[in-house]
């Protein structure tokens, strides 16, 4: 029997799906981590990016700082937090590390989207007597929406992928199936866990793709490159 068939039979064993360390529990934890971290990152990154983009100031600095953030390994942040007092709060370190990881793509995309809004349109809106608030919510944000949503999509998929790392530090989620597989020296379980995470990430990517296709024209009409 090769590894793939062994992995398949691991996946199709119903005992592996139920219980405290079963696939369903791990999937729930993974989903919870991803959704919570995505929400927190959006709440942090989007207002900052929208305001900076609207004012046209300080954004380059924010984008540069968040790009430097890319150089910091999420795993290192996670372990560092684990050893600080934050480490006592269950999933706390994982959530903080993942939020730090998800903020840069959100911030960069939203800021770039805001800056790429046609300045003629902005001037026209201002000429029509729109206030700053009206300009922001009725002109700039709708026009920047495609790029903002691309940022959310990138962040969501990367979060699903990276939440796996929580398992290295003893956290929950699908990564636990992989690390448990390593500890049991069971290549079949490792591969089965990896397939589960990869499929989950692809499903999230697919859902965003679907949502984008079904959305009205003006939301869709952005460049996704």
């Amino acid at each position, binding site marked *: 029997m090769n590894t*793939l068939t062994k992995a398949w039979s691991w996946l199709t064993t119903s005992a592996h799906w139920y219980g405290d360390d079963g696939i369903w529990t791990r999937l729930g934890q993974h989903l919870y981590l991803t959704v919570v971290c995505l929400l927190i990152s959006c709440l942090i990154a989007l207002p900052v990016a929208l305001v900076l983009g609207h004012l046209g100031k300080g954004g380059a600095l924010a984008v540069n700082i968040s790009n430097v953030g*890319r*150089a*910091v390994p999420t795993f290192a942040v996670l*372990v560092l937090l684990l050893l600080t007092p934050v480490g006592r709060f269950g999933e706390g370190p994982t959530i903080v590390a993942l939020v730090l990881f998800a903020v840069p793509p959100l911030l960069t995309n939203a800021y770039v989207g805001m800056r790429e809004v046609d300045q003629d349109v902005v001037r026209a809106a201002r000429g029509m007597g729109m206030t700053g608030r009206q300009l922001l919510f009725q002109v700039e944000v709708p026009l920047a929406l495609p790029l903002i949503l691309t940022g959310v999509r990138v962040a969501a998929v990367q979060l699903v992928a990276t939440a796996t790392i929580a398992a290295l530090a003893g956290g929950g989620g699908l990564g636990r199936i*992989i690390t448990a597989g390593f500890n049991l020296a069971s290549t079949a379980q*490792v*591969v089965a866990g990896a397939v589960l*995470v990869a499929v989950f990430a*692809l499903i999230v990517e697919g859902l965003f793709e679907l949502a984008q296709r079904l959305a009205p024209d003006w939301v869709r009409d952005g460049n996704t490159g």
Partner: protein
Amino acid sequence: MTAPPDDCLARNEWICGAYLSSRRHILWEAVLQHLQLTVIAVLIGLALALPLALAARRWRWAAGPVLGVTTVLYTVPSLAMFSLLLPVYGLSAALVVAGLVLYSLTLLVRNILAGLRAVPEETRQAARGMGYGPVRLLVAVELPLALPAAMAGLRIATVSAVSLVTIGAIVGYGGLGNLIYSGMNTYFKAQVLTASVLCVVIAVAADLLLLLMQRLLTPWTRRQS
């Protein structure tokens, strides 16, 4: 009887000079392994990405699959990627390198392709008119003009690779990640912080080095600014 040592190692402090001096060779070995894994992976990635990008540009039918497959590869979580390759490479450095190569492909192929596509048609025609054959056109005109975009991709790929190497700790080939991993299990603060900081230093240094290289390789872009 000697008194128990009362230094920063015994007190388990975050910043500890005694750690740096007593574990110098361990740190040095980890840094070397980190650099080796990163450099080898990025070089192999580059060697694979260039022909793929050229093929995607040359043949329209090749562009879709090449971009599609590399994007899907990028979506696979790092921990899962290493695990999926486990049956092929076993617990080895080659496993980590292979994983990193697959990750760098998306960024490299996309950027090289974007750079090549941005070469103005007039430039190409002018070179052909001057009697440049296809190979000389590619090497002497198109690749140099695509360099800024390609280097941008290379910088992101390299910085991400430096950060991803740490996950290789799961199979024992994680460079500084090994120190972070073992430091986590033994609650060794100085080791975790030192290794994390070194990771960031390596990433930033690599980024600056590539930026410098880009400026030296493309002197014509500086005259405009």
